[in-house]
């Protein structure tokens, strides 16, 4: 375990540095490709060596300078990315915790004991939940709110805020939209594992000793399936990070996902100025490097935490040759 942890901790800074370099170089190359192919931006192409550019950037980075946004206010990129990252982290953690609680509960109760099998309502529920794109649920919510406002009249206000940031009711819609798919995925997986565990002899023995079914489910069964569940939860969290880009864009949540969407998607309209980077964030190297570095840090932390927890839950994983890196 200690060896595994040391290996992870030693490799992590190198991986983060590699992601930072790749993101920075990628943005410059992609920007050059865009400029070379767009007659509006051809004049802005530079021919400076990429490694030279990155060297300069790295030197500034060592001094704690992540660059500034190309706006009048010249907001520091490091501060912006950190602030956005914290907002996303909050949203992500709340959505993740709720989806895990929901998924585990549905999964555990979706497994019938006598005989061990899935509850008939679980497979269709899981299938529908896993097929629901987050933006689709968001659009449904928006359509309902719009209908409510149309019917309630011009004096009415929306019962829930649909845009913007706040650690209050602003969280409800983004969290609700985010948690559906991971919850459905976890419920399906948990139920499958629970059913197979309920078939084991120790469950029959525990039941014959008079233990109540809910205690067997939550204590003994769940205790034996924690390791694969943790790995699935890590995969769900990764899914959530991807979905975050979509949900933050839909609800105007000023987080890391929103920042990535702005950095990686050009505006629907472009002008010479925006393509030259005067006002646009599209493929802004410093911003993209900082944002992707933060994503890499989050993914590494998540991966390491999930792998360690899984090993704690099931020490056999550390000795296994398969699936050790999975998660």
């Amino acid at each position, binding site marked *: 375990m200690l060896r595994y942890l040391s290996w992870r901790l030693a490799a992590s800074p190198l991986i983060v540095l590699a992601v930072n370099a790749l993101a920075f170089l990628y943005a410059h190359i992609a920007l050059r490709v865009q400029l070379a192919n*767009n007659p509006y931006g051809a004049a802005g192409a530079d021919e400076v060596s990429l490694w030279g550019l990155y060297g300069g950037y790295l030197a500034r980075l060592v001094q704690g300078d992540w660059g500034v946004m190309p706006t009048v206010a010249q907001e520091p990129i490091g501060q912006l990315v950190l602030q956005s990252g914290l907002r996303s982290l909050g949203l992500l953690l709340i959505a993740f915790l709720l989806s895990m609680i929901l998924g585990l509960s549905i999964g555990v109760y979706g497994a019938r004991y006598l005989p061990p099998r899935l509850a008939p309502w679980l497979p269709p529920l899981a299938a529908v939940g896993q097929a629901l794109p987050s933006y689709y649920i968001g659009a449904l919510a928006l359509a309902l709110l719009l209908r409510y406002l149309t019917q309630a009249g011009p004096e009415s206000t929306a019962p829930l805020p649909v845009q913007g940031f706040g650690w209050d009711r602003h969280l409800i819609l983004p969290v609700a939209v985010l948690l559906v798919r991971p919850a459905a995925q976890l419920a399906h997986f948990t139920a499958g594992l629970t*059913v197979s565990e309920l078939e084991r002899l120790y469950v029959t023995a525990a039941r014959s000793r008079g233990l109540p079914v809910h205690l067997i489910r939550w204590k003994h069964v769940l205790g034996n399936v924690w390791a694969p569940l943790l790995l699935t939860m890590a995969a769900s969290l990764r899914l959530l990070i991807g979905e975050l880009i979509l949900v933050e864009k*839909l609800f105007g949540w000023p987080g890391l996902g929103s920042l990535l969407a702005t950095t990686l*998607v050009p505006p629907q309209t472009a002008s010479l100025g925006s393509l030259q980077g005067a006002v646009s964030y599209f493929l802004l190297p410093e911003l993209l490097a900082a944002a992707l570095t933060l994503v890499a840090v989050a993914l590494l932390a998540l991966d390491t935490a999930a792998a360690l927890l899984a090993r704690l839950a099931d020490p056999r994983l550390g000795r296994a040759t398969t699936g050790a890196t999975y998660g």
Partner: protein
Amino acid sequence: MVESALSDTNTGLDATRSRARNWPLWIGATLAAFILLLAAVGPWLAPLSPTTPHYIIYNSVTKAFVKPPLPPFTVPGFPLGADGMGRDLLSQLLWAVRPTMILVLLVAAIRLLVGLTIGALAGWWPGRIGTALDLLIALALTPPVLLVALCVVAALSITWGMGAFVLGLTITGWAEAASLLRTQMRLVKGEPYIEAVRALGANEGQLLLRHGLPQALGLIWILLVSEVSSTLMVTAGLGFLGYYMHVIWVPLEDWSALRSSGRPELAQLLATGAGQAYQQPWQLLVAGSCIFLIVLGFNLLGEGLRRRHTRQQSRQPRTRLGKAVAATRLAVTERAQSQAVTWQRNWSTSATLGALMALALAGGAILWQSQRTTLTTGFIAVPGDHLWATARHDAQATRWTPTVGPAQEPTIAWQWQADADFSGGPVVAADGTVYLADRGGTLTALLPTGAMRWQIALAVQPVGTPTLLPDGTIALLGSQGEMALVTPTGQLRHLVTTASTAKTLTNPVADANGTIYYVTEEHLAAVSSGGAVIWQQRIPTYSYIDPVLRLSEDGQRLYFEDIASSTSAGKAIYAATKEPIDKFIVGANGQSYLAGQAALATLAFGEQLLVTPLIQWDPILLGTSVRLPQDAGVLPDGRLWIFYAGGFEYAKLIWVNTSGQPEAIVDYTWEVDSTQLIGVDGQGLLYTCGRQYTNRREQRLECMAHAAGARTVRWKFIFPENGFPVGGALAPGRLYVATAEGRLYTLATP
């Protein structure tokens, strides 16, 4: 998603399910079949054109006119509503399923092929190869697929188009399949029969291909349908963010542009809906519902296939009938056992992999086909088989030649300097001889090698480009309507003059009989190859910008602007439209069209002219509503090009496909009024030349080649000397460019 499709394979859950009806299989298969059917026949079911805008619509229920956007179920004829431009959402949806499903199937097949290869190798080979592949799989699994696809598409979609989508969705998307197959291969590898075969002397390659892979291939189709749904989820996510296939940048003004859709596609519908989510959420809902149903269908199909696969492995007959059926099946199976085992061992791997590769190849071919230019073989012929008979190649002014010009980066093969400025471009005879006239009154014939064949001084001041008659005679107009006819050997045959001294307006065109037609500021005239004036009629219209005379393919009509005249007497027979911008043009396929500001119409000539709109486009969206097209043409495949150029604006060329969707917009940054559209060759390459103006000292002549329907430059050639292009011609492997300074360049691929 792939994980969840197979996640409980080893949990023992399936034994409990084996008694239940496999409803996911039936529902999933029905939904998937419906979706595939919709992809196949959807465009034919569309009630309206998916791209035709309706700016105002009459609602027969409320008896009132309404403006789009329209919510669903409010206006008859638009059951799912209409977008902001009044385009029917149902029709868009019916058109959109096909391209999306083709992309998704292609990507799923590629992901599976890559995942199968890497997963099988990682699972079978321990040691360094296995460790390296394990690391590769772990690396590919770590970042979210959507984020990776987003990065790839953001960087490459502008140059690679759909290729960027395929790469972005595949580059890490294979890892889940690889991870599962790796686990499966490790399980198979531990089986006793593998040890037995190894003990019999089989090497690792034989073991993997003949005994390992066939065991894992049972999962392939389950994985494929799961990959389809996960790929679609990511594709739709990209669409929601604003990335979709066939995206084009539509210039709005000189320095601004708008991202817009080329063709209906599910991701594009999502992108449009996302932009209007707070005003018109139904657009997002309509497209989202379709995505949801497709994903649900394929998820259920995957689940059903998995249950079926597991049941086949664990099924035990319980009833008497079941046992009897099982016994019969066993008896039949045993007889075929040896052949089946042999087949399975020898061919099942190849067949499955072959099917996957066929799926990938078919999808790739369809996508590639949808992007490339397909030129048909039916096109008009030039009398005398001349390579470039007039200024615009032929008497129909199509600017299209079946020969292939310099497809690759060219060099200057030779150049020739005249004593005076050229009056127009060159023409190229069937034997390759190049003819040009200069303003000093000299007509020059050059051999294909660049050597001068002959020169003749004429008593006229040449205007424009000469024309070649079927017998090789060269017809050249003077500035006041006079015409010189010169034999191919350089002898003046006739000098035709008329009483009128009006200025010449057009280049001459010649029909298959050798009759030459031309227009002056007063007359439309026909002259025989013998030099006799056959008829003269008053010019049919004084409304023209860039006057071009065209001959219909059958030689019966002459088109000048929007007037059609008979070639027999020159009388105007059809005055088509009230729009002064409209022009009759002839496509390279021989069809006559009426080209307008925003539509191309086919023509049927009878007692009355029947004009049927064929292609319509949106000039407001294209930003061309205030620009006048200088020229337009149709390729043999029906693709339309419209060329905008004038004395006060940079040139622009727009490609419109047969559905009316702009495929590409080429913006030229050459000096205003210097862009010369030379022509399009048999491979669909478009050649243009112009003068790049940097400052007063730095002006250079350039030529470029673009593929038809594409904006990317195939090659660009910068000439060593400055020059202002006045015309050009295409010949096999060659591009001739004439400049106002009296230089003729021959560009050829080395």
